[in-house]
């Protein structure tokens, strides 16, 4: 019963951590931050959840299968932005073609936002996958099995 404090604290903290992650994510092009930091912060919310409620509960919220899909989507978001700029007539990741009529390179802004979003998705799902596979590891191999 003594864990009630931790459980309530986790419930209170969970949403602000995710909100903060999203702030770091979408503020990354103006200030310190970006996809990597945001992705790690985002994953931390779920790792905290796993510490408090157990890995099985977290797996119900965010199953491993979904993480694989998110990982893939993140890379596709990043690479897809590059391919989109190529299809629009620019070079790979040449963001200026996204808003060609802009005089102050607005395309660069949108481009980096999209790419960083992909980075965020991949980093957070990879962090969680690493956490899942370390904490959910089966017991050590018997000496006989070698």
């Amino acid at each position, binding site marked *: 019963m003594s864990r009630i404090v931790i459980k309530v604290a986790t419930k209170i903290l969970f949403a602000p951590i995710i909100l903060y992650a999203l702030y770091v994510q979408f503020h990354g092009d103006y200030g310190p931050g970006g996809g990597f930091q945001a992705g790690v912060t985002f994953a931390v919310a779920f790792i905290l959840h796993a510490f408090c409620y157990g890995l099985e509960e977290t797996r119900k919220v965010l199953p491993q299968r979904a993480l*694989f*899909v998110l*990982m*893939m989507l993140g*890379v*596709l978001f990043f*690479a*897809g932005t*590059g*391919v989109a700029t*190529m*299809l*629009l*007539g*620019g*070079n*790979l*990741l*040449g*963001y*200026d073609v996204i808003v060609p009529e802009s005089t102050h390179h607005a395309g660069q802004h949108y481009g980096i936002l999209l790419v960083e979003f992909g980075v965020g998705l991949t980093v957070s799902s990879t962090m969680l996958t690493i956490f899942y596979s370390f904490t959910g590891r089966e017991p050590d191999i018997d000496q006989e*099995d*070698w």
Partner: protein
Amino acid sequence: MNLIAQLPALAIITPLICAPITIVLPRGRAPWVWATIVSWLTFAVCILLLREVAAGGEISYHLGDWPPPLGIEYRIDLANALVLVLVSGIAAVVFPAAYRSVKPEIDPRQSTFFYCAMLICLTGLIGVTITGDAFNIFVFLEISSLSTYALVAMGARRDRRALTAAFNYLVMGTIGATFFVIGIGLLYQATGTLNLADMKQLLAGQTSRVVDAGFAFIVVGIGLKLAIFPLHLWLPNAYTYAPTAVSAFIAATATKVAVYVLIRFLFTVFGFDFSFMGAAFTWVFLPLGIVGMFIASLVAVFQDDVKRMLAYSSVAQIGYMLLGLSFATVEGLAAALVHVFNHALMKGALFMAVACVVLRAGSHSIQAFAGLSQRMPITTWAFVLSGLSLIGVPLTVGFISKWYLLEAAFAAGHGYASFLIVASSLIAVVYVGRVAELMLLRPPAQEGPYVLPKRDAPLSMLIPMWVLVAANIYFGIRADFTGDIARRAAEALMLAAGGAP
């Protein structure tokens, strides 16, 4: 979108964007079919690139439209176009054969990850080759290495030693990558640029401890990735315990790409003005190449495991490439480049033949090869022909390599080296002959674990293997194709390095 202008980006983005999609495909054939198609597409892109470069000269592609010294530049000349075609071509041949070969060797739950890692490895190798940016080389080198560690570890289903082999490779490879990136950091400190061409200009005439240390770090770092003789300890285990299709792929590509990076740094970045160059050639690459040729070949003779034997032979073959480039002449460099190409063909074919035997016999021990000509004649002859190529028999690519090397040795005034090349080839006769004698002359095992049914490997493995064997013979007869490109590439590299043309 102008397809031809976007070719350098397509070479990278095709395998990169298709690799993650593999994960969500259903298990079974789908990931393999997908990866095979992607490898063929990449091969087509690389061939088009080579054609463009051969016709129109160097291509420079500005990633993100940022101009070169600031942004990342993809720069393709003949030297890396040749390596690009080689890497993607080997992938296009190995991937189709992978399905049957790998199915019993890895955990079926890992099959989607296997093909994903193969595609990521291909992306990394192509990226290292295509880029003209020092830090980008490091990033792609790590992409390919990390996926290779995972691929080697997947061999653990058949033999748990794959795990220690992969871990050993991980430690050594990471030390190599760290040394490499420290070297780049030092050069960045001295020049303030990461673009290779720009670095070359800014380094000209600089003599400082920082640059000297950077040179040493880069050479040792790449030397670890390249498995130069005393730094080769990770290689035999990694090649032996990896799934055989992976051995075929990385033996034919990963070390070749590392040779290319070494050549690129020595000739394009440092050049002959750099004070350590002469010493590095005379006191490091030449002796290590020769020692590697002999010791690794001798060790190969005494191996009881065919994959391990081929792995040691790879270390010896790297010695030939080092020997070629240590002459620091156009002929020597061309010989090294030709051997990079040719050795990939022979080792690819040999490992594919071993993959066929492993599929049927379930073992790569040398005893599994006894009397193989009566059980699997098509595989046996593929092994024998590519083995002859490894020795350097006329009408095969091995002969062409050795011939260029001999010519280069005489032209460079290292006549004794030509004697050593022939002598070490004779050791290759012993270790290839040992397996060939077992396969052709011994009776097949009648009892014990190596009794094989009279059934050759499936067509999906035989066809790719024979494509490689045919390439061994085709490029051995029509040597002008590789010879010409390698020579032109070597001339351009020597010119950039400021040596005698």
